[in-house]
Structures are given as C-alpha cells and as structure tokens.
C-alpha cells in the first residue's frame, strides 16, 4: 500500500488543487476506506486462499459419502476384480452389509484402472519426446518467421474442445489406423514378450492404442508449450560456454539446455499426465467401451475410469437401489486419488532432481 502514489493524495498531504475540489464528506469517506483497506484486503485474500481448499475438501467429502454404500459392498476387491455386472434391475433386490443392490450385481474396477494407466502411459511415451523435440526446435533452431506461427498453432491445438478431437479420432483417425497402420504392426511384430502385445488381431480402430494416440495429441500442446517457455528461460551464457568448449549442438542441448530445465520438464509431464488420466469425452468416444476385462492386446477395446463414469451414469440412474450410482462415485474417488497421487509424485521428483542436475551457476 503506497499512499500518495498514482496521483491520489494521501490524507494530510498538501496537494492543493485536489484538496480544493474534494468536499469534506468525500474526503471523510476516503479516509474511512483507507483505514479499513488493509483489513478488507487481508480478509478477502484469506477467503480466496481458503476457498480452493474448502472446495476440494467439500468435493471429496461428498464423493466419499455418496460412494460409501458401494465401498462397503464392493470391498477392497473392487480394486482387483475384473467384472462389471449391474445385476438384474428387473430381478429381486438383495441386501449385503445392510446395503440394497440388485441381485447378481458385481463390480470390479481393475480393467478401468489398468485402462486409465495404459492410455496415459501410451500418451506420455508418444507426447513427451515430440513435445521436447518440438519445443527445442521452436526456441533454439527455427527462425522466428516459422517458429512464431508454429507456436501459435500449438496454442490453438490446446484450445480445441476434446469432444471435437474425439469425434475426429472416431470417424477419421481410428479407421485410417485400423486399415493402413495397425495391420503392418500386427503382421510383423515378433512373437516375443512385450512386443507380442502388438500382434494381431488389430480390431476396428476403437481401442487402447487409438485412445493413447488421441490422448497424446491432446497433451502435446500442454507439454510442448510449457517446455518451450522453459527453454526460453535458459540464459545464453552457459550454452555459449558449452560451444566455446567445443561441444556439438547436440551436446549443448543434451548437457546444458535440457538439464537446466529438467525439473520443469518433469512438471510439464506431470501436467500432461494429469490431463491424460482425467480426460473423458475424447476417450469415451474411441475406447470401444469394454468394461469387464482388460485389453487383450494393444488394439483391443477397453475403457478408462473417466469414460466409464460418463457412459454408465445414464444407466446407473435407472438402478432404483442407487447402488450403481454409488459405485460410479467410488470410481470417481479412485480417479481423484490417482490424480492427487500423480501430483504428489511429480512434486517429489521435482524436489529431488532440481538443483542436482543444474549446472554451475544455478542456485
């Protein structure tokens, strides 16, 4: 609070021309406001600071309350079972642990947890190298007349609604991949562990790999634009020093520029991972929506937690016992916990790597 700056006269300051114009009442009001300004500011800041935390606590509490009947019935096995059976809504209602649910209902989230992790990992494996390479080219290599429009395109890509990307994935990218790309992979991958996951059948283009590729397209703008901003922060002196020592361009990039912002890149990757884990609409359109079992190979239809909540909510609401909705709330809880865990782990990694990898001269 710098009183007297910006042309506003502080009380008692001999500022002749304004004092003449200001009537006594107005001056009094201004003085009272001044006296309370600090308190008001402090309180609004406090409320603003607490609000996000309160919202988070509120959301999690409601989720836990809604999910509670499902947590009781589904038990810890919910995390490891591979089944998705809403039971017969037209059959009898049974009670277990005091909770009403349709006879025969049995839920397990393992295929959905696995699907969420699989699509996210595929997306990161594709997106992170492309993003770092692209960001590096934009800041270090390309002339401004190319890099500026390219950078703009990157930001425009980030702004495309996910449902549009999902539709494009379903109607255009999926069929192209299934007809022209996947068969090449499926036919020629050797029958050895890990790589045999890429062997036939390649399916229809709705499935794990397509979902991962589309997710990659959605997180590239996030990771790349963050990384680009990081690269522009690297001061020129260390890079020039590297070149003076006879390093090649590649060595400068690999040993000076990228290590300088390593923790930032990890943070950017965590941002992308967070987006990939929670992305719903685009994924729901292209996973093939298979709930009860994990993907048999990398082309298989599957589903993720977020996509399942979206696609099953309508049907869950027809379960008169409310058990199906409770189970979806439990899924939501798992998703929230996964997202928080990703954030925490990313922070730990950043804390461990920052400073260690930084070259001399960086605090």
């Amino acid at each position: 609070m710098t009183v007297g700056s910006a042309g506003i006269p502080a009380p008692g300051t001999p500022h002749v021309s304004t004092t003449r114009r200001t009537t006594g009442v107005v001056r009094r009001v201004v003085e009272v406001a001044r006296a309370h300004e600090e308190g008001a500011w402090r309180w609004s800041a406090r409320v603003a600071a607490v609000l996000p935390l309160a919202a988070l606590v509120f959301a999690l509490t409601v989720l836990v309350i809604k999910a509670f009947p499902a947590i009781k019935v589904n038990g810890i096995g919910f995390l490891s079972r591979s089944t998705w059976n809403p039971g017969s809504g037209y059959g009898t209602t049974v009670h277990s642990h005091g909770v009403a649910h349709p006879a025969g209902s049995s839920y397990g989230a393992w295929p959905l947890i696995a699907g969420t992790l699989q699509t996210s990992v595929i997306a990161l494996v594709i997106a992170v190298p492309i993003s770092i390479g692209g960001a590096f080219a934009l800041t270090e290599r390309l002339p401004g007349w190319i890099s500026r429009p390219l950078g703009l395109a990157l930001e425009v890509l980030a702004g495309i609604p996910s449902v549009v990307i999902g539709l494009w994935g379903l109607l255009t990218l999926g069929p192209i991949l299934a007809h022209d790309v996947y068969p090449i992979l499926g036919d020629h991958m050797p029958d050895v562990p890990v790589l045999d996951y890429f062997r036939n059948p390649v399916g229809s283009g709705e499935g794990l790999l397509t979902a991962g590729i589309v997710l990659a397209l959605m997180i590239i703008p996030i990771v790349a634009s963050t990384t680009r901003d990081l690269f522009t922060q690297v001061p020129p002196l260390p890079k020039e020093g590297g070149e003076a020592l006879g390093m090649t361009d590649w060595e400068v990039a690999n040993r000076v520029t990228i290590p300088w912002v390593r923790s930032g890149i990890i943070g950017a990757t965590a941002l992308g991972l967070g987006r990939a884990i929670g992305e719903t609409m685009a994924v729901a359109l292209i996973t093939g929506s298979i709930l009860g079992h994990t993907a048999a190979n990398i082309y298989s239809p599957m589903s993720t937690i977020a996509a399942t909540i979206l696609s099953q909510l309508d049907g869950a609401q027809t379960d008169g016992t409310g058990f199906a909705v409770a189970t979806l709330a439990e899924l939501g809880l798992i998703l929230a916990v996964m997202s928080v865990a990703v954030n925490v782990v990313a922070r730990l990694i950043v804390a461990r790597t920052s400073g260690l990898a930084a070259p001399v001269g960086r605090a």
Partner: protein
Amino acid sequence: MESNKEESHVTRMLRAKRCVPTTVLAIGLVLAAAAGTASAAQPKLPKSGVETPPAATLTETGSTLLYPLWNIWVPDYTQKYPNVSIQTAGTGSGTGITDATNGTADIGASDAYLSPSEVTASPSLLNIPLAISAQLVVYNVPGVTAHLKLSGKLLSQIYQGKITNWNDPAISAINSGVTLPNLPIVTLHRSDSSGDTFLFTTYLSKTDASGWGASIGYNTTVAWPNVTGALGEAGNSGMVTGCKATAGCIAYVGISYQTQALQANLGYAQLQNGKGAYVLPTAASINAEAAGFVKSTPANGTISLIDGKTATGYPIINYEYAIVNGKQSSSSTAKAVRSVLEWAIDPKDGSSPNYLSQVFFQPLPAKVEAQSVKQILKIS
C-alpha cells in the same frame, strides 16, 4: 412452468373477484382451488379424444429410438395447439426415466418398462404405451445380399464368443443357398444404458434360457461376455456407424433406424420366432406379434412382447413408453401433458400411419390404446 402457475393464479383471482366482497374472496379462492383439484383428479376425455391444453412449455427426454418420432410429432401438435411448446432430446432411456422422476422433464421416453426397483423408488411413475416398435438385427457381411436367417440360440452363441466366424457350420446350416465368407464376427453392443439392450437380451434369455438366461440375463446394461474384438457403441446411430465401419460386425438397432441402416449398406436378419419360423420385421409381422399379446397386456402396460407364440409374428417387438410422473407440479402442466399424450396415441392424430410409417412403428391395438388413455387420465 412458473408463468403457468402465475397465470392460473390470476384466473382464479379473476374468478374470485366476481364475488365482490373481500370476505367472500377468500372463500372463492378456496372453492376455486378445491374445484381445481377435483377436476384434476377426474379429468374426462372430450369427444375429440384430445383435451385442449393450457399454455405450457413441456420437456421430453429419453429413448433415442422414440426421438425421431417425437421430432415429427412436435411440429404438428404445436401447430394445432400453438400455446404449447415442447422441447425434445434424445438422451437414452435411463436419463428419460430419471428426468421424469425428479421433474427435470415432463415426459420421459423409454423402450423398456420401469423395473420393480424403479417403481419402488418412485411409486407415482406411470409407464404408458404409446406405440409399437421392433428391433432389427443388422450385420455387415460383404457379399451377402439375402436376409440371413438367425435364431436366438445362434445369437446367444455369437454374443458369448462360441461362434466366431460367419462361415460357421451352425450359421450356414440354416442359410442354405447363401455363400458365407470366412470372416470373423465382431459383436457390437450398446455401451450406454439402452432399452434396445433390454429387448435384445430378453430375446436371448427367452430363447436360450439355460445358457444366456441363466448366466447373463436381461437388463438395460448387462455384463457382456469377453469376446475378442467386441465393441460397445453409444446410441442407435453409434451402432449403425460402428457396424458400417467394421466388416463382419453384427448389431441390434431399433426399427426407427432402418433407413439409416440400409443407407449404411447393412443387411438385416430374419429372426426365428416362438413357432420356429424365420420372419422379417414388416408391418404385418409386427402387428401379428402384437395381436398375440393384447389379452395379456396389463392395465399398467408393464409387459415384455418378446418371442410370442404367433406363427407369423416377428419375435422382438415392444411397446414404446412415455414415463410420466402421475403427480405433476401443477394442474395446468398435468393437463398439457395429458393433451400431448392423448394426441400422440390417437389413431386420427399422432398414431396415424402418416407419422408412424416414417419410423416403421405400428399403432397400439384398440384395447391397449384404451388402457393407455385410462393411464393418461390418471396424470394430475
């Protein structure tokens, strides 16, 4: 809806004001209110068959199968009664039922009747048959132009992954004269909660009681068996586009999507009925099947019309339901809802072939229509 309440309030006030003294005004108000509730409890169907609606804005959500019909009904109904406006949305039967329950929508459309647990959860809900629909089993088998013959047992085996190729002897045995290609079968099912899934799995449960019926059963969403390549698709249109893109696919869609299915070059099957005959879904076979269920249709319309015992009937047909809360928020909304539904099932109006033939639906048999009218008049 808020404005309707105000409006009826205003008319009551006007009516009351005729009895000038203020002391009488209060009594007048009470009387008017009492008269209002009395007439709402026992509405009568006018000779025209359709009550004249008060000004109202109604919302319809639900079944994607019924959605195309609502879209051809609404312009004509609102042209006749311009003081009513109706917003429609194809959201899936589940949302339709939920919206009708909590009052988000005035009319919920569903291909499936209410489950016992839904009735327990909201006892004031009515399921009112509006028309008769059927379900097609469609497929994308290049080179096959004939209508393949399929039975419920066969479909059960296919959807359980026990029959995996179109050239399987079990399929060719009943399709003599058709050259079936060596092509893996890709089964499509609905990923969203669907009345179509309810109909299809009911057919499988009834025709393969010891297999499908015992292990999987019927519902708007079921635990689909683990079949290689099987896909979940959202909505009837998702089924059609998904099947078009996948050679070897098999899927089930509502008959109102027949035109889209044919445009996508999909074939549709002759299904085996309860008497063992293979029948195509036509107006005649749908009406024949429906006729067999008229006697057994209860007053509340809750019945499955699958796999009846009519020799010429098509085995997967169903009533299309309006899910309506029997206790509406205001008597004027209730009257408007009644009017729309009365118009919709009247064979001279909404249920004339002029509308229904566009989506290949059939009108309700006379006795069922009369039962539906009785249910509609319960809305207050």
